[in-house]
């Protein structure tokens, strides 16, 4: 089980970390950053503002600005946070504004205790804190208004930024109360916890598809991304990266041609003590076009290092070797005795599943702008993990992390890529070397070949079925690079069941499913060779992107081997016994909803067409959004697969913004399709072979099938929606291909060749 994310309840919310003191002047809340040039001005609101909590301020004009501590990469999380605050505060939606937080620890996630955005965690983990912040503000404003009006606070109602006393027909706007200076109530952490929040039947904002605050700026070119940062006097950096993904060193650099490039300032060979990069050089010039010319003119010779001969095949061979060893890896799940149960099973199935290296490739290539001002290093970049990235930037600069101020920008796509901070290293070292602010921009080629990719994975699954066709044992080995161990943060690792030391649960999450299987083990095996040669990252949904590919394919294989309908077989396994109580039933219901919407089993499909199902939870059992997919495909005799329709159902508990949920689920499902059918990266001679969108090909408009989405909101707590639909699609397609053609595919991405090869002659 994953240890860093336990059941998320309001009680788990660490309110003691937060400053919710109503009426406290902003300048008093700047914590360790007080007195730091720049940050003070950036964070301190005008004294006349009413700042009920660190999360928002109300200006004398009545505008409410919510500061979002989460990276907004298109999931509209800033707008979502504003919506949750707005519900309890009683503000008018058109009065709401958003602001992106700096790395001041006061903006840390109330549950995670750091600034990190991922895991589809944000709404679930911040819902309570934002609700209480909003409610505290409403109460303070109400008391202030009551004092001004000379009426009991209990007789006032709040709606649309107006506080109304119905009896006397007196009313004050939020702006009036802020201007009066009478909103001064303070709350202790215990008082905040004691606030009675609205019940869902009282909601007027939650569940409404309000216009997203950030969208207009994304239709007229005014939204500012890291790429768009302009600082007076800044120079531009273009990086020269080695042909080997990781481990190369620079032997020598010949600057002679680069010096002839107009505007060239300097080339800097990185000295990266954070070991985020190896063998990089950054060329600095007055414009980016000149920096690129200079980078191209540099003649760099390398020592390729220990990984220079490795290929995808070497990584796969090594994975297979490791899996065969009895003492490899650590156990993530160990229920019952799978070895014994497999020994006595009536039928044993065994299969290998693989996934390729995959690249994030957000549309905005990696970039960062670094500026030294006095003792302070300012970093401007869209980033998902300010807490760690600030430390990497500090490491690159050789300074204490407390002197780094991270200025958050809108992210031109994240998908996990911007959890990393590699782009800050050349920016910082270039800025230091040339004594000017420097904006470093990766070319798409840099971005693709130096991605912290989704690792190549190899999984071996053995399943045992008894004489009645009941699944009695499942043994599952997962071999991969370990993306989260790479961070070097012990809190993000999980103890192994067999007490062989911590493991990276971000490689096996999802395999601890909600099916009842009495004998079940999961072994997490680190592929050290892959880990070193292809430093891996967290790609949208992380481990469930491969673990459910194996599990949900194998469940289908078992159903086929025992002559059962694959959907009904799943339903029988989702019996809610023991630890699966609650979750299993929700997943079963979601599967049924998807089946209903898709018309699964209700119509005879033409020859060569088929439907397949899959059902998944989220990254962790404790953060599940229950998600199921029915894929409808057509398979040609050539093996060519056409995905005709994807039907996805998801149980999110509570919908904050229904339209946004549909947008996220649809985008996630299409990501799943793209990874299942189109995206593949390969390693050769230690380097990633695909360098741009001609070699690495995410889904385009013409490849989009019909997508139907059903959202189940049953009043349980709100859960995340950015990821689960990514993971459910590939196995649903694989299972549909089997249903249509009898061909079982076990490698992602799925190719026509593999399908044809797997067809029965």
């Amino acid at each position, binding site marked *: 089980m994953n240890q860093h994310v336990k059941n998320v309840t309001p009680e788990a919310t660490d309110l003691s970390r937060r400053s919710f003191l109503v009426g406290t002047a902003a300048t008093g809340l700047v914590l360790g950053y007080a007195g730091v040039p720049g940050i003070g001005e950036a964070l301190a609101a005008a004294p006349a503002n009413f700042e009920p909590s660190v999360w928002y301020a109300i200006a004398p004009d009545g505008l409410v600005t919510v500061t979002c501590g989460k990276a907004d990469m298109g999931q509209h999380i800033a707008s979502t946070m504003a919506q949750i605050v707005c519900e309890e505060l009683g503000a008018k939606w058109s009065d709401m504004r958003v602001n992106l937080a700096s790395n001041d620890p006061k903006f840390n996630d109330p549950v995670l205790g750091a600034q990190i955005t991922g895991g589809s965690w944000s709404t679930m983990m911040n819902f309570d804190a934002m609700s209480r912040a909003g409610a505290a503000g409403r109460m303070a404003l109400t008391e202030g208004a009551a004092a001004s009006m000379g009426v009991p606070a209990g007789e006032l109602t709040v709606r649309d930024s107006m506080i109304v006393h119905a009896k006397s027909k007196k009313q004050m706007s939020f702006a009036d109360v802020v201007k009066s200076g009478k909103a001064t109530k303070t709350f202790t952490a215990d008082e905040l916890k004691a606030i009675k929040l609205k019940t869902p039947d009282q909601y007027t904002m939650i569940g409404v598809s309000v216009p997203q605050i950030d969208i207009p700026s*994304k239709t*007229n070119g*005014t939204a500012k991304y890291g790429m768009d940062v302009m600082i007076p006097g800044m120079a531009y950096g273009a990086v020269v990266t080695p042909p080997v993904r990781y481990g190369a060193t620079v032997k020598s650099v010949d600057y002679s041609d680069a010096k002839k490039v107009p505007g060239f300032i300097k080339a800097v060979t990185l000295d990266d003590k954070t070991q985020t990069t190896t063998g990089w050089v950054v060329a600095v010039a007055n414009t980016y076009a000149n920096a690129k010319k200079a980078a191209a003119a540099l003649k760099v010779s390398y020592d390729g290092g220990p990984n220079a001969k490795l290929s995808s095949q070497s990584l796969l061979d090594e994975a297979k070797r490791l899996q065969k060893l009895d003492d490899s890896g650590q156990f993530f799940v160990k229920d019952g005795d799978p070895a014994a149960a497999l020994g006595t099973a009536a039928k044993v199935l065994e299969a290998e599943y693989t996934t390729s290296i995959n690249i994030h490739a957000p*549309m*905005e290539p990696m970039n960062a702008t670094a500026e030294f001002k006095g003792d302070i290093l300012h970093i401007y970049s869209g980033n998902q993990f300010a807490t760690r990235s600030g430390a990497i930037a500090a490491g690159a600069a050789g300074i204490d992390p407390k002197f780094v101020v991270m200025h958050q920008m809108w992210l031109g796509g994240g998908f996990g890529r911007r959890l990393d901070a590699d782009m800050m290293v050349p920016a910082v070292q270039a800025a230091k070397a040339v004594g000017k602010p420097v904006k470093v921009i990766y070319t798409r*080629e840099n971005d693709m070949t130096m991605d912290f990719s989704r690792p190549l994975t190899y999984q071996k699954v053995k399943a045992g079925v008894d004489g009645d066709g009941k699944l009695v044992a499942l043994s599952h080995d997962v071999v991969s690079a370990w993306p989260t161990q790479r961070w070097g943060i012990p809190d993000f690792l999980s103890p192994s069941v067999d007490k062989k030391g911590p493991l990276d649960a971000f490689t096996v999450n999802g395999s601890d499913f909600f099916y009842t299987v009495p004998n079940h083990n999961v072994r997490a095996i680190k592929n050290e060779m892959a880990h070193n040669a292809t430093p891996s990252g967290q790609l949208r949904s992380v481990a469930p992107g491969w673990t459910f590919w194996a599990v949900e394919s194998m469940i289908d294989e078992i159903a086929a081997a025992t002559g059962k309908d694959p959907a009904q077989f799943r339903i029988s396994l989702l019996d809610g016994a023991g630890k699966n109580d609650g979750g299993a039933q929700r997943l079963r219901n979601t599967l049924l909803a998807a089946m209903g919407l898709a018309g699964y089993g209700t119509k005879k499909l033409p020859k060569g067409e088929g439907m397949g199902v899959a059902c998944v939870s989220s990254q962790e059992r404790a953060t599940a959004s229950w998600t199921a997919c029915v894929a409808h495909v057509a398979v040609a005799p050539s093996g060519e697969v056409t995905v005709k329709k994807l039907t996805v159902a998801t149980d999110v508990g509570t919908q904050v913004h229904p339209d946004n949920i549909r*947008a996220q689920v649809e*985008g996630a499902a299409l990501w799943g399709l793209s990874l299942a059918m189109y995206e593949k990266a390969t390693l050769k001679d230690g380097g990633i072979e695909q360098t741009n969108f001609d070699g690495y090909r995410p889904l*385009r*408009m013409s490849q989009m099938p019909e997508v139907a989405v059903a959202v189940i909101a049953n009043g349980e707590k709100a859960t995340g929606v950015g990821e689960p639909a990514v993971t459910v699609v590939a196995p649903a397609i694989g299972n549909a291909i089997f249903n249509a053609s009898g061909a079982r595919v076990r490698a992602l991405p799925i190719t026509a060749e593999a399908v044809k090869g797997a067809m029965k002659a």
Partner: protein
Amino acid sequence: MPTLTINGRSMSVDAANDTPLLWAIREQLQMTGTKFGCGAGLCGACTVHVNGEAVRSCQTMVGDVAGKKITTIEGLSAKGDHPLQKAWIAEQVPQCGYCQSGQIMQAASLLAKNSNPTKEEVVAHMDGNLCRCMTYSRIQKAIMRAATEMRTASAAGNERRPT
């Protein structure tokens, strides 16, 4: 120093003739709505109009567009109220939003010539523009919505026209 006609204004840029138009627009003129995505004409994020045609500004050199009429997202409409921009908001198209300037400029060049496109024509015209958030279905809906608005406005204009 080449002079460019951008969004109806004449501006000189301190850039060599072989500088991609994209970087001249972004850095010299500090109009950052036009985005860098791939540098190879494969993604469409940098799409602008040159004499009304959608082109990839990363593949267009400054020296080749002197004297031509260049339009960027900033110049598509006076107040961000081109029918496509309004439709993009109505359909809540953008997620991360990074590709959307390019998507809108690409779509605008289609609707300028054909205000009643079929779905197939939309897909064929838009297929070179990548959206990594996969907002494709909303992009299609927004284009159709804008096309309808443009046809309605044009019909209304025709009615008012004296015979």
